[in-house]
């Protein structure tokens, strides 16, 4: 286990380096630069600005300078937001996305696992058909439809919850609708995976053995079946959690959450090289980190897995 872990941890910077390098060159060679404006800019001014941000240097030099900053965890100044560095932007915007994401993960897990496990155990029941229909809808209807719809019903018609805004971690009322909107497609995926996992496990011989011992259904399902049924869900969770925590442009836009998802998209359209790099790195670190966590968790869930 120790050696496996060490090897996996060593892999992390390599994976991140490949990610960073690919993004760097893709971004730089995309037509248009950060200082190409709608209106004509004086070439001398433009040259001066490019010089300030080292954009006049040959590409390998730019890449080298970027890497050197990166190892010192300096993501550089934003090209568009003159008052803030990328580090500051991430520090300012990521927490809102993370808080929203955290609630969304909890909602997705509770709803998805609950519905999936019960649907699997009671295959072909009304609950099974009902929850799987809801899951299909959750997957098929895009967030930009679900979000405004929820806001309309619960925010405006019923007036139970605020339509938009963000009041930090404690402003739970503000987070309910966006968290649900964000969680829904993930809950649907989790429900379908958990149901499929449950169906596979529940027909195994060892479940029959458990029944033959005289155990109650609750014990058979929770002690004997759940662990095996969880495995596909756990492997889905790695990338899913990283994705949820880094925010969603659509959800943040609809509910006015000052999150990082918005910065990511705006950075890309503005050719704000450093901001894009920063958000890509953030997502990359989370993705690699959660996948590592999932692999470790697998070892705890399934004793047959040996790390060598």
């Amino acid at each position, binding site marked *: 286990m120790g050696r496996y872990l060490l090897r996996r941890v060593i892999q992390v910077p390599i994976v991140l380096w490949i990610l960073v390098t690919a993004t760097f060159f893709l971004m730089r060679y995309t037509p248009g630069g950060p200082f190409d404006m709608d209106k004509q800019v004086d070439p001398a001014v433009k040259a001066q600005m490019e010089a300030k941000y080292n954009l006049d240097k040959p590409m390998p030099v730019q890449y080298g300078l970027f890497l050197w900053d990166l190892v010192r965890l300096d993501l550089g100044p934003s090209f568009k937001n003159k008052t803030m560095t990328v580090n500051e932007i991430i520090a300012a915007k990521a927490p809102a996305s993370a808080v929203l994401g955290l609630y969304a993960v909890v909602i997705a897990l509770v709803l998805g696992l609950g519905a999936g496990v019960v649907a699997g155990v009671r295959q072909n029941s009304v609950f099974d058909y009902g929850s799987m229909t809801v899951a299909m809808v959750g997957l098929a209807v895009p967030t930009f439809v679900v979000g405004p719809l929820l806001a309309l019903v619960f925010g405006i018609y019923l007036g139970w919850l605020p339509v938009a805004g963000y009041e930090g971690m404690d402003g739970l009322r503000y987070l309910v609708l966006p968290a649900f909107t964000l969680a829904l497609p993930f809950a649907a995926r989790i429900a379908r995976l958990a149901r499929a996992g449950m169906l596979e496990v529940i027909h195994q*011989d060892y479940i029959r*053995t458990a029944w*033959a011992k*005289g155990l109650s259904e609750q*014990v058979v399902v929770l*002690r004997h079946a759940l662990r095996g049924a969880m495995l596909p869900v756990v492997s889905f969770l790695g990338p899913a959690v990283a994705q949820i925590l880094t925010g969603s442009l659509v959800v943040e836009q609809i509910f006015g959450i000052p999150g990082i998802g918005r910065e990511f998209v705006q950075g890309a359209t503005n050719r704000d090289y450093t901001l894009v790099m920063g958000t890509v790195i953030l997502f990359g670190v989370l993705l690699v980190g959660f996948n590592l966590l999932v692999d470790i968790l697998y070892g705890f869930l399934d004793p047959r897995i040996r790390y060598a």
Partner: protein
Amino acid sequence: MTTPAPSPAAAAGAPGQGPALAPVLAVDDLHVRFRTDDGHVHAVNGVTFEVRPGESLALVGESGCGKSVTSMTILRLLPSPPTEVPKGTIRYRGDDLLRLSNRQMRRVRGGKVAMIFQDPMTSLNPFLRVGRQLTEAIELHLGLRGAAARARAVEALREVGIPGPETRVDAYPHELSGGMRQRVMIAMALVTGPDLLIADEPTTALDVTIQAQILDLMRRLQRERGMSMILITHDLAVVAGMCTRVVVMYAGRIVEEAPVDDLFDDPRHPYTLALLESVPRLDAALGRRLRPIEGLPPKLTEPPVGCSFAPRCRFVLDRCRTETPWLEPDADGRLRACFVPLRRGRPLAPAGGPAGAGPAAEGAGGST
């Protein structure tokens, strides 16, 4: 779970105190069918047998004859759609298991009637330590907890001949060999002290040498405990070594029931005869050829009319195709479901039909 079992166990105690001859289990006219898209599959069609205290009964037949379905139905382990039991009773010490509540049934399962399955590789939970899989049965049926339950688990593993039970109790199933796993299964089934053990092809998935060890172990434990056993198998060699009485099944019906020696010496049903002729025997005359059973067992989607074995039977009579023979004693009091009076592999002169191989004299001259 720790409280002493009320009604069903108490009720079961009363008839059990009677003379030892009262059967532990009595299956009567059991019918089991499965609902499918193409109609019903009639897996078990009127099966009747009983298991007496301390005896080991073999349930024999080829794949799909209904022997496993019968045994699973005893413990109600088949999922209820699609399985239906339209008719019959299964009395365990007087209580009809088919009419117990789920709660009452759970006390019987594992506690009074335990089961061992065919494939030890898949029948143990790969996610749980061996010890846990034993202690959960101990907690449930014996009411022991913690260290006491664990100690009982170690003892149970020792009893089935697992070396180093103190450490093996913490092993996961994948860390044990197939033979060891089947020993664990046996320990798990017997640790609660059941008085009936149903073993469904317990050695089919094992190597021949391991098979012998496991059968020895089961025979020893059964004798020591005076427990009754139903052994389900298609292996006649296993039957000969393990059982006192044999029930032969074909296409969801019992075709013959006999003490084991009678059955091997002088089968009274053509299917039993064919079954015996299809396996090698050390005591057979040299040069005897093995004789396969031609054809296939019938589809069970329609309730069979006439004898199910008729299309494959070499002694078939006209009435076999229209009239269903039921399990009845023949002239010697042997139970078989057949219209042809069979003696030592030859039919006696038929009572009322023109068909038949010949007079009794020929039968006597050409035996074995």
